[in-house]
């Protein structure tokens, strides 16, 4: 995208591109003031969606110089990032790099210390405490430690995101059965999470995250500690929901997952964004936590 000062801006532009991209870029800057937002939407977002230009598509997530610190300790530093709709983004980096914190900022579990995050056109700093849960319905989140409700059955855990939205019981039943069938756990419908294996619990957590077909799926180490069969089932679920148009963001240091999945990868180190890579087919094997090893990939980080 041109916003980050990438190579596209240096190319010679035709008059069409000047009109089609440049003006929207200017107006996107105005966009955050919200007064011109509806106008921008009508003028520029819609043509993009009709296929005039893929570049006109508004990022679903925009992060501007985002920092997060606990007291004096900086966990994330000056992250600026645009994520297009239907991206399959992998966030990688060593432990303590800020991957989980980045996800927590996205699903509003924590406030940003500096900067702004715009999700689906909404400045998250302006979402009131009361409106936060409703805003979170845009997401499906797979938490690092599954965070299943131990006093509820598998069915109730998976049904929860639909129940909070006030869906009809018959619809909830149908959806939950379908998703549990897809992950091979339909026979554990009335089991309590404590009786399930780690892999099964993880699958339930994924099922809960995607049961309402969210626009955005966030997952924190979804394949950590899983055997390859369980991991495959989970990755297939993510792939499926991505194919359906959702944006998927996964924080991971699972090499297998990085190899198999995703069309974009960012690398964090000590809270800073040190690499931003796109791939057409798959990431080269050189990808690991050492930023020097990403040399073969096209980085967009200035």
């Amino acid at each position: 995208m041109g916003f980050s000062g990438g190579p596209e801006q240096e190319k010679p532009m035709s008059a069409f591109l000047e009109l089609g991209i440049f003006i929207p870029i200017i107006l996107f800057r105005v966009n955050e003031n919200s007064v011109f937002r509806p106008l921008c939407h009508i003028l520029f977002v819609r043509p993009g969606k009709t296929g005039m230009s893929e570049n006109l598509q508004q990022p679903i997530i925009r992060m501007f110089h985002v920092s997060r610190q606990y007291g004096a300790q900086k966990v994330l530093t000056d992250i600026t990032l645009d994520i297009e709709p239907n991206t399959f983004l992998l966030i990688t980096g060593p432990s303590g790099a800020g991957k989980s914190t980045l996800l927590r900022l996205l699903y509003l579990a924590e406030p940003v210390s500096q900067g702004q995050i715009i999700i689906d056109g909404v400045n998250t700093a302006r979402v009131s405490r009361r409106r936060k849960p409703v805003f979170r319905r845009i997401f499906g989140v797979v938490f690092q430690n599954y965070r299943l409700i131990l006093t509820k059955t598998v069915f109730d855990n998976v049904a929860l995101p639909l129940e909070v939205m006030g869906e009809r019981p018959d619809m909830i039943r149908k959806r939950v059965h379908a998703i549990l069938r897809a992950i091979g756990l339909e026979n554990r419908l009335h089991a309590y999470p404590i009786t399930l294996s780690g892999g099964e619990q993880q699958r339930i957590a994924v099922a809960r995250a995607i049961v309402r077909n969210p626009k955005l799926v966030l997952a924190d180490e979804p394949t950590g500690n899983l055997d390859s069969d369980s991991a495959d089932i989970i990755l297939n679920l993510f792939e499926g929901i991505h194919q359906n148009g959702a944006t998927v963001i996964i924080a991971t240091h699972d090499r297998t997952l990085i190899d198999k999945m995703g069309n974009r990868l960012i690398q964090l180190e000590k809270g800073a964004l040190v690499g931003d890579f796109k791939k057409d087919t798959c990431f080269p094997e050189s990808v690991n936590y050492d930023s020097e090893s990403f040399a073969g990939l096209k980085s967009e980080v200035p």
Partner: protein
Amino acid sequence: MKTPSVLKRALIDIRDNGFINLVAVLTIAFSVIICGAFLMCWTNVNHWIDDAHAHVRVMVYLQPECSADQIEVIFKQIRENSAVADVRFVSRDQAMTDMKVLMKNQTSLLDGLRVNPFPDSFEIRLKPDINHPKDISAFAEKMGSISGVENVEYGQQWLERFAGIVQVVQLIGYALITLFFMASAFIVANTARLVFLSKQEEIEIMRLVGATDRFISTPIYLEGVIQGLTGGLLGLGLLFGLYLLLASRIGSGAIPGFFIISFLPVNTTLVILAACMIAGWIGCLIAVRPFLRA
């Protein structure tokens, strides 16, 4: 949010936190018994006072040496008084017979008497509009001045004194009801707080998957209302049992029919149930608000 699902969640919470819910229900029931018993006494006493006010009866006792002619004259004087609704002569023998009927199980006490101690008397019922203590007092004074009249009794004096005491007791009762109402709300609040604390992780997860404050708190409020209703019904049930026990004892007591006690009127029981449910709801409101603000 569908109502049955909210009710289901509230009932599951009650089941999962059985002991603390039981404590809350028993506290409410205990409060209802105390307050209900007080209300029952108060209602009955008020009923007796109202009854006494509505049927003012004045007894005019005659001197023992009154002749039949004199009695006739006194009778005429009483009947001509405009305040009198009805007058009945009660001879000393009649008075003795009435007393024997009243004390049907203890007539032996009267059998031992060699002389009939009761004087001849007139039982006077006043007109309904003559119920002010001053009017009654003036009437009694007038009756007392009639020649041949020994004594006049009308019971209003002790009734007025008693009504004064009832008013004080009534104030104490209000304070007691308020106290127990607050205690019930406090206990329910603590119960709700414990439930909330035990479910903090669950509530956090619910929020993360999009549950609003309303979705989270509605079952807790409902739980408080159910606690209040259950405690209220239990308390009223136990109070009714106590009432039946008391009523049967009084019925077979020294002077049957002298004391008639009745249970709380339907309106009052409904008010008590409503108050219990409100106490439960307020308790939850107090407990839940700080958690939701956090």
